[in-house]
């Protein structure tokens, strides 16, 4: 009798980026403090409020900034010993506008391809392809300096893609874009990550952008990692979140919820999101309000969002 062989162990995929105890200081100010993180293949969001250290991390990974301590690996290569090999395999879309002056879009993108080692003919062909892909096909012979903000974002993506990188660093890719352009950009990013096999790190402070494109997230705050992991896992089990609004005594309700061990996040409006522990439900929320003599005007079951994860990790947003 043949013994059935055990099912193959599903090994965790090798991370594309790892940081081990990385600290970066600008003078006396610490931008990153002993950051240890790993980015899995696929689309990973790098979230954090302004000044959290996201862009510093990207720049350190690119070798622009030398960390005060710690080690970093990108695609299995050490950033300090193999920076050029790393840069030949990554694409970087910077946060602020950047282009080579005096060039039209197709020349600029082809030039970037050549800088990355593509032969001139291949670089030109790739430039046309990626410009069509990012939606600048019709405007590819226009000088980049005449482009609108949205078009400049697209061309930055094109120059990052032209040499077909294995990993993309996208630093605030939807900055300054109108809603339609933003949706198109996010669709491109999602397509790259999910259909074209390009790993990417999407650095943003816009939670919906990250939630739309990424499966994993690394949240930074004040130069440290606040939390990291798969978004679905971080969100926790469904059905334990309620949006509630009291007639009066909003602050009392918040205090009562917190005293009862319910996690409570206030939103921009007078609605707050209450996270009820496992096994409890709306009944307990009503009971709490009744006990405090408060009238609930609104109670609606909700789903945990990335905003909740972010708020939990960083504090109320």
């Amino acid at each position, binding site marked *: 009798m043949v013994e059935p062989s055990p099912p193959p162990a599903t090994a965790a995929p090798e991370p594309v980026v790892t940081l081990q105890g990385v600290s970066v200081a600008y003078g006396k100010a610490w931008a990153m403090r002993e950051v240890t993180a790993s980015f899995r293949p696929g689309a990973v969001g790098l979230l954090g409020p302004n000044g959290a250290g996201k862009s510093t991390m990207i720049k350190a990974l690119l070798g622009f*900034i030398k960390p005060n301590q710690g080690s970093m690996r990108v695609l299995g290569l050490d950033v300090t010993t193999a920076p050029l090999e790393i840069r030949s395999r990554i694409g970087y879309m910077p946060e602020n506008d950047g282009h*080579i002056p005096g060039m039209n879009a197709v020349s600029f993108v082809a030039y970037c391809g050549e800088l990355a*080692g593509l032969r001139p003919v291949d670089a030109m062909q790739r430039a046309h392809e990626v410009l069509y892909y990012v939606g600048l096909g019709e405007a590819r012979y226009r000088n980049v300096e005449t482009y609108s903000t949205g078009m400049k974002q697209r061309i930055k993506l094109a120059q990052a893609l032209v040499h077909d990188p294995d990993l993309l660093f996208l630093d605030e890719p939807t900055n300054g874009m109108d809603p339609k352009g933003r949706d198109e950009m996010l669709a491109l990013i999602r397509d790259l990550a999910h259909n074209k096999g390009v790993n990417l790190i999407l650095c943003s402070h816009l939670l919906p952008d990250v939630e739309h494109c990424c499966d994993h997230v690394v949240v930074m705050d004040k130069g440290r990692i606040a939390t990291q992991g798969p978004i679905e896992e971080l969100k926790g089990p469904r059905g334990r979140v309620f949006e509630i609004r009291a007639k009066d005594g909003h602050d009392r309700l918040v205090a009562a919820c917190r005293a009862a061990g319910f996690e409570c996040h206030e939103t921009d409006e007078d609605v707050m999101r209450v996270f009820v522990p496992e096994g409890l439900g709306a009944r307990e929320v009503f009971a709490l309000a009744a006990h405090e003599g408060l009238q609930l005007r609104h109670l609606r079951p909700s789903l945990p969002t990335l905003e909740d994860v972010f708020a939990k990790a960083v504090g109320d947003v």
Partner: protein
Amino acid sequence: MPIHDQGYRRYGGGKDARGQAWLVIARSGIKTMLARRLFLALLLVSWIRFFYECIRVYLTTNFGQFSVLATTAQTFREFLEFQELWVFFITIYVGAGLISNDRRANALQIYLSKPLTRFEYVAGKAATLAVFLLGVTWLPAMLLLVIQGLFAGSFAFIREHLFLLPAITVYAFLQVMLATFAMLALSSMSKSARFVGIMYAGLIFFTDAIFGMLKFLVKASGASLVSPTQNLAQLGDVIFRVPPRHETPAVASLTVIVFLLVVSIVILERKVRGVEVVA
């Protein structure tokens, strides 16, 4: 509906070995400049002295009555000294925007996110300027030497003045290196090409004016040390074996030139970065 889906495809072609990026930068820079009519006109004008010298060589080698104008080693020294004017204009025209324009357009982060080093970037920019400067100094001077031999029907002059080959090369390269690195250093310090051009012109004229004042007022023997052009001229005299125009030792002039080159390189090292950190 497009016939062919213009989607993103992975690249299956080859890539060049690393270390070639400076050539890409230089090639692009040279192409950009050659596309400008004004620059082509400037290049053409900068060769006028060469054509004049060719006519002179032709006359002196073929007509005895012009023998008083015969070519000597001094001719080449004077030729290269005259070309300094064009070196000045071309340095400003080509060099002022080489790095400053990239800084203005935040292009450094684009360049340095590609597989090239800062050294390669500077080398590419330097090559762009140096090619044009050598094209108005070393190239016409060498051609003049060859044309002298061709018009004379013998290379006796070259054989007798064999030192001219290294002299022209060393002096032209010194001239070009100084102009190139000084301009690149200035260009890396500003985001305005116009301002860089003014700074460069100011540097040349101001130091020359200081030299003139010191020479007139103090009659100091080392006054030429304050002016890069005077130091270069002093070295040029020594290289071409003509009596030096200043009392300053050539070694001191060379030290000043080397010092300027080192300062320029240090500035470039500090300024050419993917990110500007203001601590």
